[in-house]
């Protein structure tokens, strides 16, 4: 085998692997990503019921209602708009009122958000960065970790 055919063979192999990888990546990016929004962005955007998104915001004070079994409802707010969220599983340790959290799920037919995942980050000062900015703009920012953001 000459150097040239050898090289062609390798270029072909590498080309194939890369093509498969690029194809897979594009395919997976279509289905594997979800948008993250605040309640205001959710109201503004045209999100259909059933479409998976991430919704982040502050758990409004006094909004947490526990129901039968593990059923729990709460309101997420970005101080402009609010969205009611229902969840039927164990809440993370760091879930509490006035805490910035991220939920994953989709809108129900009634316009309320049905979450299947709730994430509260393992930093007690954690808050989605642009939410902190929004709260600062409005002058309602009073987080203890303000200087860290």
């Amino acid at each position: 085998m000459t150097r040239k055919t050898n090289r062609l063979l390798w270029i072909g192999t590498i080309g194939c692997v890369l093509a498969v990888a690029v194809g897979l990546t594009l395919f997976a990016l279509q289905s594997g990503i979800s948008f993250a929004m605040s309640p205001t962005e959710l109201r503004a955007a045209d999100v259909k019921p059933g479409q998976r998104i991430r919704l982040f915001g502050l758990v409004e004070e006094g909004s947490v209602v526990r129901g039968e079994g593990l059923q729990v409802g709460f309101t997420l707010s970005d101080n402009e708009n609010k969205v009611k969220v229902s969840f039927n599983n164990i809440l993370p340790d760091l879930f509490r009122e006035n805490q910035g959290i991220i939920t994953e799920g989709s809108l129900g037919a009634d316009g309320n958000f049905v979450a299947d995942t709730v994430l509260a980050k393992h930093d007690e000062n954690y808050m989605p960065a642009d939410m902190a900015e929004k709260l600062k703009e409005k002058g309602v920012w009073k987080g203890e970790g303000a200087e860290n953001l």
Partner: protein
Amino acid sequence: MIVELGHMALLIAFSLSVFQSIVPMWGARTNAPNLMATADVSSIAILGFVTLSFGALMWAYATSDFSVVNVWQNSHSQMPFIYKLSGTWGNHEGSMLLWVFILALFAAAVGVFGKNLPKTMRANVLGVQGWLLTTFLFFIVLTSNPFARQTPVVEGQDLNPILQDIGLAIHPPMLYIGYVGFSITFAFSIAALIEGRIDSAWARWVRPWAMAAWIFLTAGIAMGSYWAYYELGWGGWWFWDPVENASFLPWLSGTALLHSALVMEKRDSLKIWTVLLAIVTFSLSLLGTFLVRSGVLTSVHTFASDPTRGLFILAILSAFVGGALFLFAFRASRLEQGGLFAPISREGALVLNNVLLSTSAATVLVGTLFPVVYEAITGAKISVGAPFFNLTFGALMIPLVLVLPFGPLLGWKRGDIVGVSQRLMFALFAAVIVIILAYGFLERGPWIAPLMMGISAWLIVGAFAELLQRSGLPKVGLKTGFARLTGLKRSIWATAIAHAGVGVTMLGIVFVTAYETESVAILKQGESATAAGYEITFEQYQTRSVNNFSEELVQLTISKDGNVVRTGAPSKRFYPARQTPTSEALINTFGFSQLYIALGEVKTDNSVVLRIWWKPMITLIWLGSILMVLAGGLSLTDRRARIGSPKLSKNRKLGTASVG
């Protein structure tokens, strides 16, 4: 006073690294031996001063000196002593100091162990290490000084409770040794590019360093995975979290580097590629540091951080990566091409390994950075989840593991695919048996799972084919066979064990992904729930208060067929200083499987909510990693013999005699 000395030592170390960045390299250019030799002294002096500085910070933590801002923010007088010590690097400033400490350690190691390196090469390598030291020391001094003082306070704000675990004492140092260890291969590459000269001796030099870094990185990642698994209480062992990916990326390219350096060492081929991989691997380590330290991506690992630091690290990243790649583009053509080889050969298999590992690293990189880029362009926030990575990474791993057992059996230059396939028949046979058994005995689960188990078996059994071949077993009889096996080069054993380790990890992943069960139980005292044939009974609710936290425990008994087999208590802790709760899961190991029980909450009617997982064969995931680490260590012990004299030992002759 000690704290001020630590600060002073840091500044001295910085000045010395500026010196080391310039003088030895100048010496190498002008061929001045005395200038080049300064690096040997300065690298050790820098290590001394950085150690002093790191020791001073540790001392401040050990004695709970809350007049130091950093200690006050991240420690508590009531913490167990070990957490006080490990708390030194449980924060941004301290962890950067640890980073630099390890960097200095590696630089000094090159100075000490590199006596037989060509003089100019050593000076250039240490010079590049000097650049790295200078930049990171500058970064610490300017933006992340851990020694800042304040008016003394009585009590500290406590360490993030999630970090109050033995995992913090082990995981970050291991990971950092891995990350920073690749700085040596980076420095060697830059030195080679500067000199425009590279040969197989270079690869013989680089491979042990890359191997050492890889061992620690592997151990660090596995340890981190197990830590997240037992500490976070979500029962997951890998989340494709951006920061996990950041540590996984250099692992993938580092693994590729180990294999390509092998080709370079043995066959003097793939030089340019190996140099590029060495640069890429350390660049990915830097990227990992940037992602974790900058707060660009939010994850479990990001300490609260300010944007100036992020920008600074981004500047460091661009300078080193950009500079290295620029140098590479200009000088790589000077490096000579190596020997020819047929596509079906040991080299060919190693190239394929590199193609697949690099491509999979690229897809993980795309998935990790996509949200950042997407947000910068469109302003919309997105997240890339596990399905993306499972699909892209998984699909690329399958061809890799399928061809893996062939690699070590193929000859250099030109391999005999028919002969090798015959030698692997027994591995194929084992795989088919496993697939049939799995379809027969495991009822639930996806159809693909038994197939994947078969592939794992193919890997594990196939990994030992080379050993079998070289020993001549079973033809030559047991006695000769075993004599040959024990006489084999350790690196051959290491290859077999590492590759089997991949199979073991894969088997664990397949089992736990396909057959794990999860259930939620709400129990009153005396009630039971069942999971995977075990009966879990809620015996008693207790509370207690320990040092810096209070704890709610739910005493459980676990029984099988009416007999109590284990007792224990999952718990919830509350750390008042940080107003933070954590969960401590109850994990019981049965064979290779685990029963994982996390306490959800205690409801107002005194019932408790438990989340119960059955994790079949999950420990194999980490046992496989341990095998890889042990194999790495074994191959390192083989190195000295090979760097030293080329003389073959009697046993080795015996071992290699049967080849061909």
